[in-house]
């Protein structure tokens, strides 16, 4: 039974990753689960310099989900390399660096730095964070900027490039194609959806940042549709995410067209989820007599 999948030139032992920003830098969960069982560890978004992030409150629980506006707090490239890389490089599974910038140049510079570091599995370009004023979704919702970010990063590295897509577009297909055409090796779909919650007693937004990004099971039906549409538009592999809580959810993403998946918000309440998903995919393959996990990918029965 083959569970391994290919993301550009990166081979993963299984298709189950963790979603950026929901797994810290791996080390935090190392006591609770064996990281070497994962397909890959994807770290929290990193830009060149340290980032303080938004004021609090930064998250609020909503029906079957969560809204967050962390604001990409992080140690910057150097801080990351000093504090977290020594641990991550000891892992047997690849580390994928989620990176961002406030300018196209910064994206490329961060990409260059991680290319130079050596040992990184892939780069995920976060052009879709809804919680920062400059950078993030600004790049992922503009076809030209998106293409430029991807192309400029492409120039500075041979590492597999994954573009993390914003769901906040009228149609995802042209954006998916723009990323593919600019040299992206894969797409991550989706980032959080812009959202808001208000405390009716105080009349204040429940997040200091006013708005945030919606994640968790509540967005799964939206994410499945986006994966399905993007899969029809591009040839590169898609990493599906958005509300995955169990193997059935992950398989649904794969049937819709994802070659791999990432577990996000579920880590917060059930850290074993990624391992449960891997076990469940195995069971599903046994039950259905599948030899290769890629037989699931895109197997949705829709009349063309």
């Amino acid at each position, binding site marked *: 039974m083959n569970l391994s999948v290919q993301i550009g030139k990166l081979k993963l032992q299984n298709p189950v990753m963790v979603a950026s920003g*929901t797994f*810290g830098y791996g*080390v935090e969960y*190392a*006591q609770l689960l064996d990281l070497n069982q994962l397909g890959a560890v994807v770290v929290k978004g990193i830009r060149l310099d340290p980032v303080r*992030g938004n004021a609090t409150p930064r998250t609020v629980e909503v029906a079957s*989900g969560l809204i967050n506006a*962390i604001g990409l707090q992080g140690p910057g490239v150097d801080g990351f390399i000093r504090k977290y890389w020594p641990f991550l490089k000891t892992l047997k599974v690849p580390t994928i660096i989620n990176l961002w910038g406030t300018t196209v140049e910064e994206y490329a510079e961060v990409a260059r730095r991680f290319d130079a570091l050596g040992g990184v599995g892939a780069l995920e370009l976060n052009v879709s964070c809804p919680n920062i004023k400059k950078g993030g979704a600004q790049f992922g919702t503009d076809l030209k900027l998106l293409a430029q970010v991807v192309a400029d990063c492409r120039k500075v590295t041979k590492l597999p490039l994954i573009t993390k897509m914003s769901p906040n577009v009228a149609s995802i297909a042209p954006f998916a194609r723009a990323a593919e055409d600019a040299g992206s090796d894969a797409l991550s779909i989706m980032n959080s959806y812009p959202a808001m919650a208000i405390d009716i007693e105080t009349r204040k937004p429940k997040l200091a940042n006013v708005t945030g990004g919606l994640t968790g099971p509540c967005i799964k039906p939206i994410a499945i549709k986006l994966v399905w549409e993007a899969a029809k538009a591009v040839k590169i592999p898609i990493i599906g995410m958005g509300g995955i809580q169990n193997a059935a959810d992950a398989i649904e993403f794969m049937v819709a067209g994802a070659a791999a998946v990432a577990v996000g918000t579920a880590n*917060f309440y059930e*850290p074993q989820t990624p391992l449960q998903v891997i076990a469940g995919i195995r069971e599903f393959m046994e039950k259905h007599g599948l030899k290769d996990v890629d037989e699931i990918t895109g197997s949705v029965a829709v009349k063309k």
Partner: protein
Amino acid sequence: MLAVPMLEQTVQIVSNERDTDSYFRLVLRAPQIAALIQPGQFAHVRVAPLKDALLRRPFSIFQVSGDTFSILYKTVGQGTDALARMGAGGEVSVIAPLGHGFTAPQRGGETPLLVAGGYGMAAMYLLAQRSPQKGIVFVGGRKRVDILCEKEFKALGWDVRVTTEDGSHGEKGLVTKPLLAELRSRRSNEAQTEKLEIGNRKSEISQSLLTPAATRQKVRIYACGPTPMLKAVGKIAGDFNVPAELSMDEHMCCGVGVCLTCVIPVQTGDGWEYQRTCTEGPVFDARNIVWETMK
């Protein structure tokens, strides 16, 4: 970085009974976790019967006894309400123990002054129980039913000073009132001693008493309660130049340091940075908290 050993386990409810009014005590059988717990740490609890709410809820670890540990919680919303409806024999998933707790009081060290508001008392019991030195517990609440564990602390031989806002139990007023009084009286005693000793020949011991550092070493404040109370305690500690450890109550999501929900502004060399209540905290040195930046 792997500082705090923690476990994720589904554990059995030994009992879950009403304490006073809207407070409940939940006892869980969890031998491996119980063995690891340090005062001031917390447990992150998944309340399975919650409907569309997904997150775990953090609770200070209240008591540890044999192979069990317990939490003392107030029903304030959907999670605690659902928890209160669970019964003995039921199961909950917990990740525990989590966070960096209080500095353990040392024999012959500073006298511990505990300050607690409402369920803040829960975070204090283990500290008092395991302290080689007895101290004073200042406990405040809105009304009589908010005063928890008075008996337990008295049974430990601690001096318990109760305040309620409505005066229905103990002294009327905020918990900071008797705290202030205590610190003032200690200062004037010291000043007295100082004066006396300055007037006489100074012994080595009395020498150390002359310095502000000495005043500081004599007591150490440990506090847990609502943020405004902690802020007031922090200010008082600063004014009296007394060390204070505050257990902060911030909304949490992951509880283990990955999501960056629970941060508070903490002074660093040249400025401040957001640190995680669940990981660097919940207990912080009062002097390092940048209150102006908090809401």
